[in-house]
């Protein structure tokens, strides 16, 4: 923030503080649901807010949430690329037996299952699905965040929903009780 006046800097600190209070959970969850591991998500969340701090004075308050979500999506994509480069790791699909006890699972186990399901979606579908279904973004907001036409965001959501529900049904039928 080299060319930022002291007044702007003070305003940025306030904005940053408020953004941390309001949107930190959303950023962290988005990172996690887009495939960033738990420990890496902590660092990634910090990267998102450091980036936000350098641009906060340019971002209108009304676009703050979309801007942070967009940053989280990009940071998650970078983390996924690094992960793929470093290790040849397939989607972490839980054992079939997990579905037998799905109803009695703990929330943390269900989240693992959710992440496994999300990992079967393409990045494009997954991003729209996570923002809409888990973070409460509207489709116009998603279209703005991802710089997509509204029609395409709507189409991706529909495809993502279909693919996720199909995965759940498939896993239930293959891993459920006989």
């Amino acid at each position, binding site marked *: 923030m080299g060319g930022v006046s002291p007044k702007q800097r003070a305003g940025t600190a306030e904005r940053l*503080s408020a953004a941390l209070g309001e949107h930190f959970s959303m950023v962290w969850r988005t990172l996690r649901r887009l495939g960033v591991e738990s420990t890496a998500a902590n660092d990634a969340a910090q990267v998102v807010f450091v980036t936000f701090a350098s641009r906060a004075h340019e971002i209108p308050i009304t676009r703050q949430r979309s801007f942070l979500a967009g940053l989280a999506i990009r940071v998650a994509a970078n983390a996924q690329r690094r992960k793929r480069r470093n290790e040849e790791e397939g989607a972490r699909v839980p054992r079939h037996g997990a579905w037998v006890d799905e109803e009695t699972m703990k929330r943390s186990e269900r989240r693992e299952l959710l992440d496994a399901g999300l990992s079967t979606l393409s990045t494009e579908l997954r991003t729209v699905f996570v923002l809409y279904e888990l973070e409460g973004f509207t489709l116009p907001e998603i279209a703005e965040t991802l710089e997509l036409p509204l029609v395409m965001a709507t189409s991706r959501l529909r495809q993502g929903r279909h693919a996720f529900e199909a995965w*759940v049904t498939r896993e239930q039928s293959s891993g459920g009780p006989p």
Partner: protein
Amino acid sequence: MTEPPLVNSSPNPATRRLLEAGLSDEPPPELRPAVAAALGVTVPSTASSSSALARVELASEPARGGPARPEKTADSAGPRPARLFDGAGKWFVAGALLGVVACAVILLARSAPQRSEATATPSVTKTQSSVGNARDLPTLSSTPAPSRSFDIDLEAARELAVRQALGEAPAEPPTAASSAPRTGLGKP
């Protein structure tokens, strides 16, 4: 398009449960302050409760046409009008009233000696011995009167004493009725 979210509308309960688990996910509580410290800012105290934050975020659901999500609580229903006698408010009001009363008492206590000094009128009090002696006159004293009603009583007694001294009033011991303000003044 305003489709209700799958967490409410999916026909498959397993889908709903998985999405609910995702909705309730929160970062570790120590993470937010750590990031804030690294960035050199402080986090608002209201943000420390992650569950409250989740509720606020969940409360945005009806805005896009879907039904309310299950974890929504009364806290997310909007700001409640401030009530004067809620919580700390009642203590504030009680403190303010006490302060007003204390100020009034102090002002009254101060104004009494100032008034007596300004008029340079010595107060008249009745001594303990004169109570039982009908012939004794009230004694003059420079002791300031503690209150206005006592002043009136003393004035009546002084007037009575003067009249007695002048022979205009019978030398009677002041009774309870006569020593009372005003009632004793007109008695012969």
